[in-house]
C-alpha cells in the first residue's frame, strides 16, 4: 500500500487543480466560432466572386464575428487575475509561448475582420461604416484584393481555430491536452458551430443545404478527430492513459459522451443527413445542439485536462 500526504492547500491548486473555468471555455468556444466563420466566409468569397452573390447569413456573419471575438477577448480579460497589466501582452512577443502567439493573432485578426465587414456587411450597415472616408478607402482596397483576402480569411481562420489546441497542448503538465488532434478538433468543432449558426439565420434554401453539407463534413471531421484523440491517448504512456480515463469511465464520461459526442455531434449529423434527404424539416434543433456540444466540448476538455495532473496521490490536506 502506498499512502501519500501532501501538505499544501493553495487555492485553485489544492485539493483539486482548477484555474481555467467558464471564461476560458467561453473564449475557446467563441474563438472557434469566429475561426469557423472566417473559413466559411473565405470559402464563399472564392465561390461567389462578388458581394451580390454572397449569402445573407455570411454577410451578417462578418458583422457578428468581430463582436463575438470581442466578447471572447472580454472573457479572456475577465479571466486575468491582474487585469491592469493586460497591455503587457502587447509590449513583447514570445515565440515559445502559444499564448503570446494567440494574443497577437487575436489582435491581427481584427483588421482582417474589419476589411471583411467593410466589404461584405449587409448594405445598411455598410452605408453606416462607409460614412468615414478612411474606411471607404479600406473597403475599396478590400474589394480589389478579393481573392487574396478570401485566402487570408481561410488561413487566419484555420490558425485561430488550431492555435487554442496548441496552447493547451503546450502544458506538458496536463496530459489530457497533449494531443496533436486537439487543435484540429477545436477547428472542426468551431467550423461546424459556425455553419450551424449561419444555417440558423439563413433563409436561402440552397445556401442552407450547402451549410448543412459543410456542417456534416465538419462534424464528420470532428468524429474522426475525437477518435484520433481517444486512441492517441489510450495507446500512449501511463499518464496519458490515466488522463483519457477521465473520459472513458472517469468523472467526465457522462458529460463527454452525452453532451459532446452524442448530443453535439452524433444526433446533429444524423438529423442533418435526414434534412438533406428531405425526411425531416430543418429546425433550430441541429444548430442549437451543435452549439451546445461545442461549448460542452471546450468545458469538458478544459476541466478534465486540469483534473489530469501528472501523478501524485489524492492529497489529504492535513498532515497528522
Amino acid at each position: 500500500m502506498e499512502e501519500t500526504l501532501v501538505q499544501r492547500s493553495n487555492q485553485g491548486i489544492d485539493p483539486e487543480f482548477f484555474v481555467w473555468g467558464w471564461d476560458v471555455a467561453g473564449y475557446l468556444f467563441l474563438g472557434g466560432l469566429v475561426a469557423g466563420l472566417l473559413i466559411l466566409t473565405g470559402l464563399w468569397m472564392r465561390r461567389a466572386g462578388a458581394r451580390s452573390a454572397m449569402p445573407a447569413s455570411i454577410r451578417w456573419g462578418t458583422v457578428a464575428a468581430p463582436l463575438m471575438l470581442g466578447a471572447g477577448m472580454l472573457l479572456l480579460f475577465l479571466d486575468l487575475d491582474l487585469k491592469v497589466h493586460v497591455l503587457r501582452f502587447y509590449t513583447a512577443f514570445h515565440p515559445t509561448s502559444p499564448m503570446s502567439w494567440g494574443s497577437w493573432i487575436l489582435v491581427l485578426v481584427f483588421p482582417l475582420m474589419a476589411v471583411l465587414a467593410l466589404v461584405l456587411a449587409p448594405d445598411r450597415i455598410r452605408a453606416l461604416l462607409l460614412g468615414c472616408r478612411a474606411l471607404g478607402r479600406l473597403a475599396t482596397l478590400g474589394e480589389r484584393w478579393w481573392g487574396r483576402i478570401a485566402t487570408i480569411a481561410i488561413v487566419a481562420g484555420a490558425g485561430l481555430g488550431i492555435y487554442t489546441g496548441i496552447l493547451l497542448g503546450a502544458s506538458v503538465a496536463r496530459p489530457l491536452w497533449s494531443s496533436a488532434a486537439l487543435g484540429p478538433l477545436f477547428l472542426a468543432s468551431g467550423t461546424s458551430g459556425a455553419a450551424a449558426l449561419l444555417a440558423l439565420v439563413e433563409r436561402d434554401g440552397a445556401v442552407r443545404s450547402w451549410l448543412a453539407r459543410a456542417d456534416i463534413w465538419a462534424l464528420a471531421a470532428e468524429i474522426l478527430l475525437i477518435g484520433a484523440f481517444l486512441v492517441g491517448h489510450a495507446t500512449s504512456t501511463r499518464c496519458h492513459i490515466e488522463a483519457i480515463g477521465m473520459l472513458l469511465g472517469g468523472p467526465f464520461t457522462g458529460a463527454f459522451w452525452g453532451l459532446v459526442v452524442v448530443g453535439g455531434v452524433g444526433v446533429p449529423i444524423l438529423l442533418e443527413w435526414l434534412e438533406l434527404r428531405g425526411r425531416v424539416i430543418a429546425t433550430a434543433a441541429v444548430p442549437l445542439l451543435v452549439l451546445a456540444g461545442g461549448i460542452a466540448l471546450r468545458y469538458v476538455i478544459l476541466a478534465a485536462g486540469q483534473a489530469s495532473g501528472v501523478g501524485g496521490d489524492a492529497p489529504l490536506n492535513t498532515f497528522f
Partner: protein
Amino acid sequence: MRYAMVIDTVRCVGCNACVVACKTENATPEGYTRDWLRIVVRGEFPELRRDIFSERCNHCANPPSVHNCPTGASQIIEGGLVVVDRSKCTGCKACIASCPYNARYVHPDGHVDKCTFCAHRVRRGLLPACVDACPARAMSFGDIHDDGSEVARLVRSRKIHVNNPASGCEPQVYYLM
C-alpha cells in the same frame, strides 16, 4: 552557473521548519505556501518505509512555465533561477497550467507567485531561508555547475531522486535517498 538545492531525505524529519521559515521570510499570503512536504509511506505493517520530501518550485533548467509565459513575466535570471516579475504578470495562469509540479499559485494580489530560491538572499550571499533554518541540516544550496560546491559533491556521492524526471523539465531540486 546553475543554482540547485539538494535535500537529504535521510536527515529530513518532516518538521516543516522549511515551510514556516519560507512563510515568514517571504511574507506569503495567508492560506498559501511556496513550499510543502510530501510524505510517502509504503508497505504493509510492520514492513514499512517512509520517505519525506520537502518540495517547492524546482527552478527547472527547461521550464515550460517560462516558455509559455506570454509577457515575459516568468523569466530566468542569474543561475537559472526562475522568477516572476510582478510588473509584467497579467495573471493569465498559463504558467500555472504548465507546471508539472503544481508549484505556483495565484497570489491574492492577482499575480502568480512561487518559490524564488530566496533570490533576494542569494544575491546577498545568503542561503535561502528554508535551507538556513532546517534543524536537521538536511538542505544544501549552491552552484551545481561548480564541481567543488557542496551540492555538486552531494549529487555525486549518493543515490539521488528528482520529482517526475519524465516531465523533461530538468528540475534542480535533488533528493538524496
